[in-house]
Structure formats: C-alpha cells, structure tokens
C-alpha cells in the first residue's frame, strides 16, 4: 500500500475519477487517499501510516462520494470508475473538527507540558483544521504512565488508540508486543496482554512503536517538554527496503 509512485514502465493510471471537480486518472485498485496524495490533494489522516496495514479507526480521512449517503474512508476505499469524490466540504470540515475535538476530550492532552509539543500530529491536526475550542465535556480519564521500560515511556493519557504501534510491532518488527485491551471508553494500549512494558519479554527494544506514535503517548525516556521527535516515515522506508530490496532516499521521497 505504498504511496510512492510506481517506477516508470509499470501500468499507467486509467480509471477515470472526478476528484473535487477535477477529472483525474486513478490506478486500478488505488485507494482514494493514495490517489489524492498522488495528485496533490491533502486529506487529513491520523491512524493511517505508509508501510502499515489499514486500520480505518480515526475516521479523519472521510470523504463524500456522489450517490453514497455514508462518508467512506479515503484510506480504505478503492476508487471505482466514474466515482465523484469531494474531499473538502463544509460538512466534512465540521465532521473532522468534531472527531479531533473528541480525541482531545477523551484523553488528557496538555500540549504545554507534553514531550511531543511542536512535533505532534494531533496538535497539527487541531491547528490545521481550525480546532480552537473543545465543545465536549473533557473526560479527564484516570489513566497511568508506564515508565517500566528502561528506554521508553508509555503515557496512556496521550494515547489516541490509533494502533500504529500495534501494527508496526506486529507487521514490521514481528514481535507483537502491543494490543488494545477492553472496549469503548475503556480501550487501552497494553503490552503482552497487560504486563508492565519493562517486563514484556517479546519487546526487542527496537523503538519503532515510539517512532510512529503520532502524539506524546510513546516517547524516549528522559525527554523533557517539547523534546520528543518521532520519525513515522522510517516505516515506509523499511517496508520498501524489505519488500522491494530497494533503498529509496527518504528525503527524495518526502519531497
């Protein structure tokens, strides 16, 4: 599910689609999100990450498709011929803002003192989607911090349950330390079915979960306010390296 354009000589995009009023050509089986990014249309995402399987949990990438009363997820919906897609309408903007507000309301997200302030995807989403107030009652959940690992810290107060860590540990590292336990509001990230992270023998200390975390939930131990820098792009680099045996200059890809 790479968003990197296929190498020259491969199939050409030949599925006609209307994206925000523009006629564009999609690849067979390409997702709406992949198409949008390829043609330079920005759709906000949070749980989606290049190189990992699709979770479809955050619902920020919802779009409008003519003839469909639901709001399909761009990350999980393949294009079909003649599909008419809208990615940026007043209704979508309102929905996305509410999703972001709910994410803030259900955690304890205190940017001012967070290790990831300034490098947080949730913070960025709030800023770029016009979230200047939370219109929902804040939950102030009583969660805990797991600092038992010698190198990393899990702060469940800042976890948005995107499952990037769960997926990267399972799909890329192959260790499957992480899972989401319980349901609904009680959902929580656990290591090895509920052990303290420091006692999880399957953890290889690789740190990929920390690199892909969109917020300050997973961080390097010892980081002070605003000092954490994640590196989620490394996963796309790693999977491409593994699957295709090809080194791609990461700066070139991101530009």
């Amino acid at each position, binding site marked *: 599910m790479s968003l990197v354009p296929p190498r020259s000589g491969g199939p050409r995009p030949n599925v006609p689609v209307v994206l925000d009023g523009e006629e564009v050509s999609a690849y067979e089986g390409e997702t709406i999100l992949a198409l949008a990014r390829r043609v330079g249309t920005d759709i906000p995402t949070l749980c989606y990450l290049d190189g990992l399987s699709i979770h479809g949990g955050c619902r920020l990438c919802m779009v409008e498709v003519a003839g469909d009363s639901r709001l399909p997820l761009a990350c999980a919906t393949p294009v079909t011929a003649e599909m008419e897609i809208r990615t940026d309408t007043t209704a979508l903007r309102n929905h996305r803002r509410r999703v972001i507000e709910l994410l803030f309301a259900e955690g304890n997200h205190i940017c001012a*003192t967070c*290790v990831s302030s300034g490098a947080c995807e949730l913070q960025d989403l709030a800023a770029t989607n016009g979230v200047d107030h939370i219109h929902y009652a804040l939950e102030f959940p009583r969660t805990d911090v797991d600092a038992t690992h010698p190198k990393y*810290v899990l702060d469940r107060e800042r976890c948005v349950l995107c499952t990037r860590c769960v997926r990267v540990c399972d799909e890329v590292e192959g260790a499957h330390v992480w899972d989401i336990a319980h349901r609904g509001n009680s959902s929580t990230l656990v290591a090895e079915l509920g052990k303290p992270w420091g006692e999880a023998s399957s953890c290889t200390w690789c740190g990929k979960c920390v690199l892909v975390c969109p917020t300050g939930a997973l961080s390097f131990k010892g980081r*002070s*306010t605003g000092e954490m820098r994640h590196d989620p792009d490394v996963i796309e680099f790693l999977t491409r390296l593994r699957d295709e045996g090809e080194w791609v200059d990461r700066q070139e890809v991101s530009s």
Partner: protein
Amino acid sequence: MHDIHLIDPVTRIEGHAKITLHLDEGGSVADARFHVTEFRGFEDFCRGRPVSEMPGLTARTCGICPVSHLLASAKAVDAIHALTVPPAARLQRQLANLGQIVQSHVLSFFHLSAPDLLLGMDADPATRNVFGLMQAEPELVRRGVRLRQFGQEVIAAVAGERIHGKGIVPGGVAEPFTTAQRDGIRARLDEALTAATDTWQLLESILDGFTREIGVFGDFPSLYLAHCRPDGTWEHYEGGLRVVDADGAIVVDQLDPADYRQYLGEAANPDSYLKSPYWKALVPDDDPRPGMYRVGPLARINVAERFGTPIADGLLDEFRSRVGRVVSSAFHYHAARILEVIASIELIGRLLDDPVLLESRVRAQGGVNALRGVGASEAPRGTLFHDYRVDGDGMVTDVNLIIATGQNELAMNRTILEIAREFVDGPSLSDGVLNRVEAGIRAYDPCLSCSTHALGQMPMSLELLDPQGRQVCEVHRH
C-alpha cells in the same frame, strides 16, 4: 466587637489575594491577615509524572518567573540523575537567571510599583497605574519597557523563548550558545546599564517623600535567608545558604539547600492556600510566627557583603552609609531590586566575556541514580526550593515546593498589621489608606498564584462587617 475590613482583591500584585483587617472594640486594628485564595495543586498533580517532565511542568507555575522554576526543577532532576552539568550549560543557566532577575524586577518596579512611587499614594486610582505613568512620564516608561525587554532577550537566548522556553533541561541546556547571541546581548549592555543606573537615581530622588512609609512598611527585625558565597559575595544560582539576623550577624552559613527540612518548617494555614515556612530553631511550639524570616532582594543584600561588581557595589556602599548595613524596611525591597538589576547587568557582561560560555558540550545524560533530589536557586522574589522523590523508573512520587512568596508570608502579615495601625483609624477609610496597605504587600512583590494579573484599575471594595457578618458599610475604591 470585632469588625472586619476586607480588601479584596488586592490589585497590581502577581496573582489574587485579599486582606482582612480585624478591629477591636476601640476601633483600633487588632490583627491583619493576608489570604491567598487560589489553589494550584502542583504538588499533587505532579505525582505520577516522569521526572524528566518536571521542569516544563513546574515552569507553568508562573509566566513571570518560569526561568526560576525551570532552574530549580532542572537542578532537582540533576540531583536525581546524580550528574554534573557541563561548564557551558552552567554559565548559560546563570545567564538565564540573571536575565530573569532583570526582567522581573523591572516589571515589578515600572509596571506594578512606580505608579504609587512616582504619581503618589493618594493619586487618583484612575490614573495611578502604568497607563497613567505612560502619560506622565512616557520616556521613563519607554526605558523601563526596553530594560525589561533586555532581560527577556537574555532569557530567550538560553531558553529559546522569553516565556516557558524549552532550553533549560535536566542535564544542562538544549543548545550551545552562539557568537551571534552573545554579540546581540552585548550590544545592548550599555543601554541597559544606563537605564538601570538612571532608575536608581530616580528612586533615590523620591525616597525623601516616603519617610513615613519607610518607617512603617515592614520596618521590623527579622532573619534573612539567601544563597551567598562563602566569601560573602552575592549569589543567585548555586552553592550554600546563609542566614543573618537583624544586626547582620551570621546565624549559620553555607547550609546545603538539600537539607532544608532540617532547618525550615512549613505551617499550613486554615484561611489561606499559602504555606508559612518558618525558621525551626526559633519556633518552640505550634505558632510559626517567631520563626519569621525574609527572602528576596532585601534579604539578599542583607545577607551578602557585596555584589562583586564595581558599579552595583559602589551604589550599595553609598546606600548602606545612609540606611545602615542591614536594611529592615520592606519599602527598601524596591531599592534592593534596582541594585540587583544593576549587578545582574554587570554580571551578564562578565559571563558574555567568558569563552567557556560558547563551548558546544551543553548537556549531560543520566538516568535515575538517586531517589530524591533537591534543587534551589534565587528566584527574583527569593530562594526557591524544588524537592522531588521518584521511584526506580523515574516516576515522581512526592513533590514539595517552597516558593519565595510563601517564605515572606509571616513578614507580610506583620507588615500589613503595622501599616494598618499607622494609617487606619476606625471605619472611615480613604483610598490612599487602602492603597498603602496594598503597597506594603506589593513591596514584597508577591507572586501568589503566579498568574499575571496586573489590573491597575480593578474596582476594589472594602466591607465593614458586624459580628454577625452583616455589612455595616461598604466603600468602593472607585
């Protein structure tokens, strides 16, 4: 019959407070109480956080002196990590603290206190604020603003931002100091020093008009506590504490701040969220009042023999020749602040000349090597203690903060009582009387909730209540 005068809120101090004056049957002031009515809860909600986050977390205590909390907190975490910060980081931190002292003292003088001092205690409240001062003395205020900006620029060079910077971290500082930063600050040194010394001249020129206030604004004997080098030189960042008595005699010297619990007690108050720290040796029973000691600029110049910088020392000697070696009137906190601003600017210049400041190694890395750490430094308002306990994973299990304003709490009560006895006479009260009571508090530059409310014209009411709590009369300030 005990009547209560209520001054609520007190304006032009950092934070919110109210004052109650209790009258006896003869109409004289029997007691005075200063209440802090806001609860912050830092010592509670910091528990359960990773200790590495404590500098950023506790800096949020205050927007005026975040650097003070950053420093005390980073030093406490340094102690838990049991590491020595690199020499360049130590100098950068000192630089930031000096910038902090400059900007906070200048704010206190020009924004909060100068309206009283320059426009007069009895001036119309509508203009007795920084805006009135801007109209009356625009050039003076402009220089004050620029002087504060200088202090903020020094802070920003180290901390990355003027307020709540992220540059002061456990183990040192985040970034090496650059020659461009050094040269930028150096270029403003002369202007800053001139503005500060001119401010001193201005303050000196008006002191004669406040003879009565000087006599009653907390002019009583007390102990004074501050950091001080063993040779008696003024110190603001590290080392031991010295305590002197009302005659300037050294009570104890070079106390390790980490042992503060051995010599300082903390009394909780039923009617205020401010704790009352006291000097244990003078408190035989439950009443903390005999253990009153003072911290802050006045305490620092009483504790230290000298600043160790030529201009400030010359002015200090001259000041002492007129008022004495130990200055007991809280009114002279103003003078001590301006002297400290001058000394700080001189010391900033000295630090900029030190080549070590530019060294690139600025951070030591560490883990949990001790389960308790105490960090102390001189905040603008006095000695600040951060005391943390952690578990083996580095999670905070206990926090104790001793804030400068708290340490002056007993002295502030005494100051209000003396001012009220001098100026309050029964239920008829003028605005000037109210403001003198407030100004007595303001001399300590208290940072109560450490929120930044400086509302010069905020309406203030004074209520007179009978023993049943019914309002007998009410006076509005304007």
